[in-house]
């Protein structure tokens, strides 16, 4: 009787593991997983609300040097292309938001900042580097993924955004 239970659990484990393996990846061409997170503005923001726009999702943390370097550049990008149907979501991955809020006071940005304190969206988007940038097209499909940031990467982002805006 006990052994049967073990057998059943093993089967369930096998199925769930294979299901997880299959449920993969956020890769160019796949649909961008939906999510909703609390925002600095107060009103929660969901990916679904933004369909029809080109969306750049940037995963960042206040303790990450390249992330901090990237912020003013993302701000510039947002201001320039927002009127044309582009939006930028800054998803902060820190479990405690105090440091992030402090950073934003000294380096304010106008694009929405979301707080992923439980790392649900980071896991969903398989964030494998800091910072990570995912660019989603108007139909909600992931088109470009970037890991890390170094000075000059923004020209690549701009090219890709312009391509998607023309679609």
């Amino acid at each position, binding site marked *: 009787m006990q*052994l049967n239970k*073990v*057998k059943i659990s*093993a*089967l369930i*484990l*096998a199925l769930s*593991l*294979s299901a*997880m*393996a299959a449920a993969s990846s956020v890769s160019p061409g796949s649909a961008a997983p939906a999510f909703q997170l609390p925002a600095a503005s107060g009103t929660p923001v969901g990916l679904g609300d933004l369909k029809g726009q080109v969306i750049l999702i940037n*995963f960042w*943390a206040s*303790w*990450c*040097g*390249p*992330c901090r370097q990237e912020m003013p550049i993302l701000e510039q990008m947002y201001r320039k292309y927002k009127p044309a149907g582009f939006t930028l979501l800054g998803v902060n*991955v*820190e479990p405690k938001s105090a440091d992030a809020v402090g950073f934003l006071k000294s380096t304010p940005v106008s694009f929405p900042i979301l707080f992923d304190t439980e*790392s649900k969206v*980071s*896991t969903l988007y398989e*964030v*494998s*580097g*800091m*910072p*990570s940038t995912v660019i989603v097209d108007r139909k909600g499909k992931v088109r470009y993924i970037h*890991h*890390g*940031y*170094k000075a000059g990467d923004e020209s690549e982002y701009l090219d890709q955004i312009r391509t998607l805006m023309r679609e």
Partner: protein
Amino acid sequence: MANHQALKRTCALLLAAVLLTGCSPIQPWVKPYEREHLADPIMSFDRNPIASVYLDHVYEVREGAHGATGSVGGGCGCN
């Protein structure tokens, strides 16, 4: 006897479960967004190389032993 057989079958099932996941390479068990503490400068093995190399030199010229004092670190996982 019967227990032995059952145990074998259970092991086979578990093995199948593992194989079904595709034998994926080792996934990082500390995600990049979990590296806040490791990114802190106080967690660096060698925060000020100019001072640590000097101290290593002070010890090494007075002692018989030397070497293997290298410092390597975890860092923030950025980029």
